[in-house]
């Protein structure tokens, strides 16, 4: 067994223990530790990824030498490693980007708590990515939820607490359903390890018994995770949670937490139930409908929104809709497109949150759309960042959003059934809606404000020099975006190989 195969386990443990350690460290040290841990794990994942790509294939890692079906297992393939790497990168950048804001919004004594939560979040995400055991997955889902809730309410004002409560309630509903689903699955198959479950599910299907319970189980799991990842009709908690928490939290929540759940769902689809069985049950069609309506209604509510942060939050409702629409197509192309969109959206959305905060800061902290007039001149870096993000979301070529849109469209066109035309039309329409609210904002921030107004509202100008870290972060974000947009071929390759290993 190659040493590199320990990477998944170590990275989970490392982050968790660093969290525990941080609890006794002062804020600064915790910060350093956190950054270091993220860097290390990222590097390790990159190493793992390269190794996996070189050797090809995937491996399972049994904890404590108990073989299946008793022991607990970790499974790592190209896709998992890639996801881990990507999550690390995004998390690092989000932390860097929001660091300054953190000092304004969270009192210093609580900083180490913040980093504890971040570490926990990372560990739970990694666990979700790597684990091969459904119940472990459930536990880490809960840990993830708790960490996320903490990240929301770390900024102490009524809004955040209320948002946290709402978030908790919704995700508890979700996890309740998930748990129920898992238990029933266990009841049906007698296993908790994904691979074993898959075999026995196949056996059940072959025997043709327990059809209805199986479908119900899948439904429970799917709905549970859909609620947690804010699919359209269950998105009520999202705008507040993303809109009022401190910026790093918002970025991480939108780009990592929900994506973690979605990735788990993908794993369940492929490794637990088996993709063709999923497609056979009518569940994808439901997801398809919810996805489409999410794409439309999310954008529409974003158009009506005057608060820029909430607007971005609503736009993520639409984007999640895209992803589930890809699931709903029920083809491998659709899956690939969705997974790529997970990456694209994560990169873009965190960029948008981070740059939006830059814009609101120079506008006397007001998040109102109209107070942002000319803010792009007051904080050029943030302006550029926001424009890039917006273009990517609208799907201008060269940016990541375009590629995922292209993949979705291609998947739709290749789709055999009647889902083709609705998908394409909705894609086009939602593009227009995206264009409406994003570019409206871009134009607004590039319309210069009158000097006297700026003076009276107490606006100030922020040079790139005064915010080096921030500037670097934004630049890195933009680079990632461009890479995803222009060199997407290898990434898609990774995704495809990963999916193949899932099956």
């Amino acid at each position, binding site marked *: 067994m190659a040493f590199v195969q320990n990477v998944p386990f170590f990275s989970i443990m490392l982050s968790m223990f660093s969290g525990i350690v941080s609890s006794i460290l002062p804020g600064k040290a915790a910060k350093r530790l956190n950054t270091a841990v993220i860097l290390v794990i990222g590097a390790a994942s990159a190493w793992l990824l390269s190794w996996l790509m070189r050797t090809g294939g995937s491996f399972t890692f049994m904890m404590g030498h108990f073989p299946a079906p008793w022991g607990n297992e970790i499974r790592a393939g190209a896709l998992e490693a890639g996801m881990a790497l990507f999550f690390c990168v995004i998390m690092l950048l989000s932390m860097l980007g929001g660091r300054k804001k953190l000092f304004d919004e969270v009192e210093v004594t609580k900083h180490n708590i913040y980093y504890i939560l971040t570490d926990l979040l990372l560990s739970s995400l990694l666990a979700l990515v790597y684990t091969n055991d459904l119940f472990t997955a459930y536990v880490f889902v809960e840990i993830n939820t708790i960490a996320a809730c903490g990240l929301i309410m770390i900024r102490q004002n009524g809004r955040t607490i209320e948002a946290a409560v709402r978030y908790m309630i919704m995700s508890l509903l979700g996890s309740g359903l998930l748990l129920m689903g898992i238990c029933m699955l266990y009841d049906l198959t007698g296993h908790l390890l994904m691979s074993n479950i898959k075999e026995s599910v196949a056996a059940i299907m072959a025997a043709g018994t327990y059809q209805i319970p199986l479908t119900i189980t899948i439904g429970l799991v799917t709905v549970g995770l859909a609620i947690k990842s804010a699919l359209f009709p269950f998105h009520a908690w999202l705008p507040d949670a993303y809109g009022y928490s401190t910026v790093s939290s918002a970025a991480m929540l939108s780009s990592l937490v929900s994506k973690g759940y979605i990735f788990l769902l993908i794993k369940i689809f492929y490794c637990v139930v088996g993709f063709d069985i999923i497609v056979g049950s009518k569940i994808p069609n439901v997801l398809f409908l919810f996805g489409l309506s999410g794409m439309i209604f999310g954008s529409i509510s974003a158009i009506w929104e005057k608060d820029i942060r909430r607007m971005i939050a609503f736009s993520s409702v639409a984007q999640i809709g895209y992803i589930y629409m890809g699931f709903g197509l029920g083809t491998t192309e659709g899956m690939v497109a969705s997974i790529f969109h997970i990456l694209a959206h994560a990169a873009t959305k965190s960029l948008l949150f981070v740059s939006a905060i830059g814009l609101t800061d120079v506008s006397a902290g007001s998040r109102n759309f109209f107070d942002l007039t000319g803010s792009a001149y007051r904080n050029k870096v943030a302006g550029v960042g926001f424009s890039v993000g917006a273009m990517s979301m609208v799907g*201008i*070529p060269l940016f990541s959003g375009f590629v995922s849109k292209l993949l979705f469209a*291609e998947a739709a066109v290749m789709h055999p059934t009647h889902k083709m*035309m609705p998908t394409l039309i909705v894609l086009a329409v939602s593009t*227009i809606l995206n264009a409406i609210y994003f*570019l409206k904002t871009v*134009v607004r921030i*590039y319309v*210069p404000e009158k000097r006297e107004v700026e003076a009276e509202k107490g606006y100030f100008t922020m040079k790139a020099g005064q915010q080096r870290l921030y500037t670097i972060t934004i630049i890195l974000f933009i680079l990632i975006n461009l890479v995803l947009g222009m060199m*997407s071929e290898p990434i898609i390759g990774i995704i495809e190989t990963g999916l193949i290993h899932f099956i």
Partner: protein
Amino acid sequence: MSQYWIVAAILLPILGGALTPVLPFRSRRGMLIYLEVLTIATSAIVLTALSRGTTETLHLVYFVRGLSISFRIDGLAMLFGGLVSILWPFAMLYSFEYMEHEGHEKIFFMFYSMTYGVTLGVAFASDMLSMYLFYELLTLVTVPLILHTLVREAILAVRQYLYMSLGGAAFALIAIVFLMVYGDTMEFTLGGVLNPAVIGGETNRLLFVYLLAFFGFGVKAAIFPMSAWLPQAGVAPTPVTALLHAVAVVKAGVFAILRLTYYSFGAEFLKGTWVQPIVMGFAMFTIVYGCSRAVKEQHIKRRLAYSTVSNLSYIILGASMMTPAGMVGAMAHMVCHAFMKIGSFLCAGAIMHQTDKKYIYELNGFGRKMPVVFGCFTVSALGLMGVPGLAGFISKWNLAKAAVESENVMAYFGIGCLLISALLTAIYMMSIVIRAFFPGRDFDGRSTEGVRDPGWKMCFPLLCFAAAVIAIGLCSDPLICFLQDIAAGIY
């Protein structure tokens, strides 16, 4: 070899333009010289590359699914690229004098020359996706130019423009994906790339998609339901309105439609299907609609903009005949209209620059005071009317010829629309000319005191364009033969 030149030509103005606000110019004059040199150099490169004429494809960047950003010089590209590269230096020269008092010059010229590069990109892109890329960029690059004055109307106009063109592009993208799946290659090939084996029973679906894409690109080409943005965009400074909203941007839309129709789906595939009457019908309606709105309009630039709307649909009409002859007619009108309309717009700009008159009823008796401007205006007006011996007649002749030869009854009515719109054109153009030269007896000279022709920087391009209109009108054979070769796929 020469496709590398093309890349150079595309990048040069983009980078050079981007540098404009950064470079330390000692004087305004310095900047102007720099810009003009930049533009002329680009045009020179383009024209030399065209004269070299090569058909190899250059793949610049590969992105997803083996799709690449790639360039190639084929006939249509030669036409559009050549046209743009001829017009741009003149317009640039003109804008030097015009923009003197408009402010924010550096930003303006930055985007103005960047637009040049992007337009060339649209022209020389060798497959649907590269063209789509530059098409989108074109939308974005021109936004600051429309926004330039920063007045409320400008902002509204920009929003409308953005939403409509990007939305349209989104629909066009659908067709691109379909071409990816159903076509042999993304490369533009005259006669279409669709692979009949793959199509199977999907014909109707493909036709529907073509329709979507047609209207998607039709936004920039200002086909009726989507034509609203063009007159609104008239708030931009005149060099923009003249060059972009009479030539570069709108022609890019038409160009895209030509690519879509003749080089991607293929005329043969579309001819005689149920989409053809729809497309043709919309073109015909737009022709008449644009003219009649122009007649009602009192604001000079808006009137010209509406006339552009209808003239663009002449081109679409030609394209919608789905025959080589129709393509020739379309391309001919593309060229002729470019010269005539940019001429008339620049005249309007000169008027607005010299005297802040914006409305037609304010122009009484200017003819005497600004002979050059109004002389050129008259020439282009007559050209647009289609008086024989001027450019307009040639293109209309070819369009009508194609229509008659297509032996498609609807096309006959298309000729009718051409002539109706010619009559309306006469009404809205000649009424300006007559008002300028025959102010009426109760007219007192005081209102036109101090009005005179602008400086050479403005007059020279005007004269050149007027001369071009006459020249094309009197000796169009080389042009038409070239176009026929293009339509026959020789280039």
